[in-house]
């Protein structure tokens, strides 16, 4: 959380003059993940993610409160928080990165983009590159992306007993709506 604030304040202070109207923050978000195995399908949704995107230097930060993932099965939700993601110890999943392409994102249009940066889940950092799509409209921005997360990459242990019920590779999809950031 602190790091995130520092990053945001960094973005705010150093780019304030030029970037104030180029800073977009998410006002609506939808992040979900799927785990698919022959024995069991698990999916969970989170609408509490927050993100800031800086159009002038194409910095991108996303922060997802882990305990806000909603499962249909509340016992699964408890196990997800207690045993797998340990959300009290690691309350947020974050991505801090940069959009690689040098695009003029203030012009309306649809752009396919790549972003590289650090994905932190379960307290474990991973250098990742994601591809997605940005739709720019008047004072509005939509970022959509889908990617996989390997549990082993983030030191999320699955006990042998339930190994066949939880996929090793979790499919994540996210859709974030942005509006110009107001102080």
């Amino acid at each position, binding site marked *: 959380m602190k790091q995130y*604030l520092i990053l*945001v*304040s960094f973005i*705010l202070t150093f780019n304030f003059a030029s970037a104030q109207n180029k800073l977009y*923050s*998410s*006002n609506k978000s939808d992040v979900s993940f799927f785990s698919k195995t*022959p024995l*069991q*399908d698990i999916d969970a949704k989170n609408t*509490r993610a*927050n993100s*800031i995107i800086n159009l002038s230097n194409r910095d991108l930060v996303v*922060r997802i*409160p882990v*305990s*806000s993932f909603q499962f*249909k*099965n*509340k*016992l*699964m*939700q*408890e*196990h997800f*928080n*207690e*045993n797998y993601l*340990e959300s*009290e*110890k690691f*309350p947020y999943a974050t991505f801090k990165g940069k959009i690689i392409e040098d695009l003029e994102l203030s012009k309306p249009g649809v752009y396919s983009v790549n972003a590289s940066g650090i994905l932190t889940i379960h307290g474990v950092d991973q250098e990742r590159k994601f591809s997605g799509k940005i739709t720019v409209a008047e004072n509005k921005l939509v970022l959509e992306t889908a990617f996989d997360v390997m549990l082993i990459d983030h030191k999320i242990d699955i*006990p042998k*007993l*339930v190994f066949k019920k939880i996929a090793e590779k979790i499919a994540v999809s996210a859709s974030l709506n942005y509006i110009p*950031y107001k*102080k």
Partner: protein
Amino acid sequence: MKLVSDSNEVFVRTATFKARRIINGHSVETVGKNNLDFIISHRFDRLNRGFEEFFGLDAATNRLGLEYGINDRFMIGMGRSSFQKVFDYFTKYKLIRQSTGSINIPVSVTLFGGYAIRTQKTVPQLSAFNRSSYTAQILIARKFSEAFSLQISPTLIHRNRADIFTDNRTVFASGIGGRMKLTKRTSINGEYNYVLPNQINDNYKNNLAFSFDLETGGHVFQLLFTNSYGMTERQFITETDGSWGSGDIHFGFNISRTFSFEKKKKVNP
């Protein structure tokens, strides 16, 4: 600096206890929405029965219970104990949930109300009214850390007819219980139910219990030692006659299995 909607996040502390029971008494936890818990509990006879009775394992009482979550705060449950052939029915409501973040609440509070009736035949046969008892509890718990939780449970038990004529029919007590996590899936629990003085016969003892909890997916196993034979509030709070000091200790276990009635999507083969 204000950061959009972002600093408004509320973190509800979940899983203060693993099971719906600390050991004998109820914990602040309720069953999740549309989940059904099936609980099988056993209490064996006293350890001090010695080798001939295989330290109490030759005899046992059981309680079979079903608990269902109407929503994530409100649940109903029922059970049937072989000891005194008691049927019990109860509801629990999670009034306050401990949380941090923009809403800071230091404790979780759950209200408990229960009714129990003995159905064992006696001579003379008592009326249903005289075999009934009622329990009300305010369960207050705090998860101090990931590993350590503590609960106090002010309790009121009313028996329409006490077994000993001189006993109060309405008894005030307070439980205290806690758990210490050993690993992510195991914990040690302790529970003590203190009955306020001058209410019941001196031969009755306060209930004290220790358990080892093991959680595996949908199951929670609690292996326990306690000085009471019964598993309903009236029995273990106001009618415990075993004493730890003289070895009247019962080995027992609670096994709870959770079934989920979420709407299942079709699984592609």
